[in-house]
C-alpha cells in the first residue's frame, strides 16, 4: 500500500472528526442551558479554586496551634478573627477546611487518574484484541466488581497501611474495572459503526483504526465516568479517613478525619462536625451534578 493512498483515506474519513466536533459543540450548548451543569460547574470551580489557592485564601496556617485559647471541651466559637472558630488544639477551623480541599482534590484526581489510565489501558487491550485477552480482562473485572467498592477499598488500604498514598491506590484500584468495562463497551459499539467498518474495508490496519478512530470516539462516557468517579472518590477517601485509614500524621487536615475527631465533641461543639461535613457535601455535589449534566449532554440518544 502506498503512502499517498493512506493519506487519501485519512481525508475521506474525516467524517467522525466532524461528528465529534459537532457532538462537542452540541454538548457545550446543552451544558450552558442546563441549570444542573451551571450549579455543578460553579461548585467544582469553587472547590478547585479553594484547593489551588489555599495558601493565599487561608487566613492562618492549618497547623498553627494556640493552646492558650483552648480548655478541655470548650473551644472559642466563630469570631471576627476566626470565622469558623478554633478546633481542639486552637487551630483556625476555616484554614483547616480550606487546606482540606487540597487533600480531597489531590486524592480524588490521583486515584481517578490511576483508575482511569490502568482501566482504559486494559479496556483498550480487551476491546482491540478481543478473544482470550478480552475474556481475561473482563472476567478479572467481574471478580473485582463482585466486591462492593467501599469494601474493596477498605481491604486494599488496610493491606497497604496508613498513608495517603494507600488511600489513593485503594480508590484507584477500585475504579479500574469500571473504566475497563466502560471503554471496552464503548469501543465495541464504535467498532461496529459505519466509519470503522469503512476504514477496515479500505484496508487500514486494525491497530490504526482503533487508535485513530475507535478509541477517541469512545472517550465521551469515560469523561462522564471520571467526573462521577471524582465525587465517589472524595466520599470514599473521607470514609477511609473516618475509619482511621488516612495519613498517619493527625495534623493533616483531611475532612473525613476532622469529622471523625469531632465525634468526641459532638454534644458540646456540633459546629465543628458541621463544617467538614458541609465541605464534603458541597464538593461531592459539585462533581456529581457536573457528571450527570455531562452524561445528558454527551448522550447521543438525546441529540436531536
Amino acid at each position, binding site marked *: 500500500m502506498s503512502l499517498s493512498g493512506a493519506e487519501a483515506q485519512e481525508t475521506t474519513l474525516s467524517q467522525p472528526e466532524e461528528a465529534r466536533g459537532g457532538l462537542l459543540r452540541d454538548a457545550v450548548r446543552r451544558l450552558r442551558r442546563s441549570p444542573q451543569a451551571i450549579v455543578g460547574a460553579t461548585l467544582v470551580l469553587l472547590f478547585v479554586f479553594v484547593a489551588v489557592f489555599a495558601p493565599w485564601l487561608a487566613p492562618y496556617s492549618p497547623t498553627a496551634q494556640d493552646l492558650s485559647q483552648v480548655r478541655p471541651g470548650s473551644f472559642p466559637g466563630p469570631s471576627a478573627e476566626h470565622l469558623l472558630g478554633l478546633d481542639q488544639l486552637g487551630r483556625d477551623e476555616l484554614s483547616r477546611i480550606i487546606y482540606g480541599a487540597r487533600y480531597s482534590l489531590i486524592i480524588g484526581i490521583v486515584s481517578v487518574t490511576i483508575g482511569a489510565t490502568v482501566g482504559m489501558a486494559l479496556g483498550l487491550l480487551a476491546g482491540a484484541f478481543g478473544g482470550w485477552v478480552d475474556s481475561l480482562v473482563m472476567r478479572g473485572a467481574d471478580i473485582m466488581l463482585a466486591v462492593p467498592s467501599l469494601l474493596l477499598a477498605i481491604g486494599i488500604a488496610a493491606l497497604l497501611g496508613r498513608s495517603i498514598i494507600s488511600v489513593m491506590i485503594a480508590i484507584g484500584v477500585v475504579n479500574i474495572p469500571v473504566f475497563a468495562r466502560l471503554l471496552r463497551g464503548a469501543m465495541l459499539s464504535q467498532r461496529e459503526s459505519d466509519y470503522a467498518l469503512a476504514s477496515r474495508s479500505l484496508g487500514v490496519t486494525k491497530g490504526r483504526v482503533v487508535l485513530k478512530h475507535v478509541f477517541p470516539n469512545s472517550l465521551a462516557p469515560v469523561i462522564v465516568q471520571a467526573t462521577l468517579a471524582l465525587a465517589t472518590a472524595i466520599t470514599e477517601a473521607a470514609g477511609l479517613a473516618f475509619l482511621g485509614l488516612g495519613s498517619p500524621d493527625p495534623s493533616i487536615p483531611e475532612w*473525613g478525619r476532622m469529622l471523625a475527631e469531632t465525634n468526641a465533641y*459532638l454534644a458540646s461543639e*456540633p459546629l465543628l462536625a458541621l463544617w467538614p461535613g458541609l465541605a464534603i*457535601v458541597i464538593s461531592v455535589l459539585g462533581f456529581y451534578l457536573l457528571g450527570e449534566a455531562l452524561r445528558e449532554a454527551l448522550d447521543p440518544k438525546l441529540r436531536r
Partner: protein
Amino acid sequence: MLRFAARRVLLLVPILIGLSILVFLFVRALPGGPETALLGENATPERVAQVRELYGLDRPVYEQYVSYVQSVLSLDFGTSITTRQPVAEEIARRFPGTVELTVTAMLIAVTVGVPLGFIAARRYGSWVDNLSTAGSLLGIAIPVFALGYLLKYVFALKLGWFPTQGREDSLMFRNEHPTGFYVLDGIVTGNPEAAVDALRHLILPALALATIPLAFITRITRASVLEVAGEDYVRTAEAKGMTRPVITRRHILRNAMLPIVTVVGLQTGLLLSGAVLTETVFAFDGIGRFLAQAVFARDFPVIQAGILFLAVIFVLVNLLVDLSYGLLDPRVRTR
C-alpha cells in the same frame, strides 16, 4: 426458566473461584507476608517459624491455596487476633444484626422512594418533583457517617427519642435470642417490649443507611415512570379512554418495575458494605462494625474472612436479582 436459572447459577462458579483467589492472595500481598498479617509487625522469629509450620507457609503456593479453599469450605476462617475466638463464630453471631439493619433500611428506602418517585413523575415539574430531585441529590452527596452524626445529634442527643447506640437496652439482659434477629426474637419469645426496644435501636442507623438507596430508588422510579408514561401503549390506552388508575396499575407500574427491582437488588448488596460506616457510628454490633474494628486493629484473619463473606453475599443477592428478572420479564429468559 429453569435453563436460564441453571445457566446463571453456573456463571457464578468462576466468580466465586476468582473471589477466593483474590482474598487468598490478599493476605499474601502484605509486606512481610501472611506471618505479619497473623502476628503483627514485631513477632519473634520463633513465633514466625511456628506460624509458618502451622499454616503450611513453606509449601508451594498452589498447595496453600487448596488447603485455604478446603478450610473455607469447612467454614474455618482461623482465629481473630483481637478477640481470640474463631472468626466464623464471630461472623455468624453478628450477621443477623447486619441483615436486620439492611432489611429495615431497604424497607424504608422502598416504601418512601417508590411512592415519592412515582408522585414526582406524575406531577413532573411540580414542587414535589423538584423537592424529591434535590433531596435525592443531597442523599447521594452526603456521606453516610456525616448523616449518622447529624441524626444522632438531633434525634438521640437533643430530642432523646431514640437510643444513641447498640442493639438493645442493657437492662433487657434477660431477653432470649433464639434467632439472633432481635425484633423477631422479641416476637417469637412473646416479649413485645423487647421487640419494640430492638426496633427503636434500629431506626436511626437504618435511616442513615437508607439515604443512598432511597435517593437512587426515587430517581429511578421517577425516570422509569416518565419513560413508560411516554410509551405508545400508554398513549393508546389513554386514547382508548382508560381511567388513570387503571393505566397506572396495568401499564405504568408493571413496566416500570424492572429497573426499580434492579436498583433495589444492587443497592441491597451495597448496603452490606455501607453498614461498615453506619454500624461504627451507632456502635451497632454487626459485621460492618466488626470489620471496621478489625481494620483499625489490623486483625487480618477477620478482614480476610469479612471481605470474602460480604462479597459472596453481594454476589448471591445479585444472582437473586437476575433470577427475578426472569420472572418479571419473559424476554430475558429466552436470551
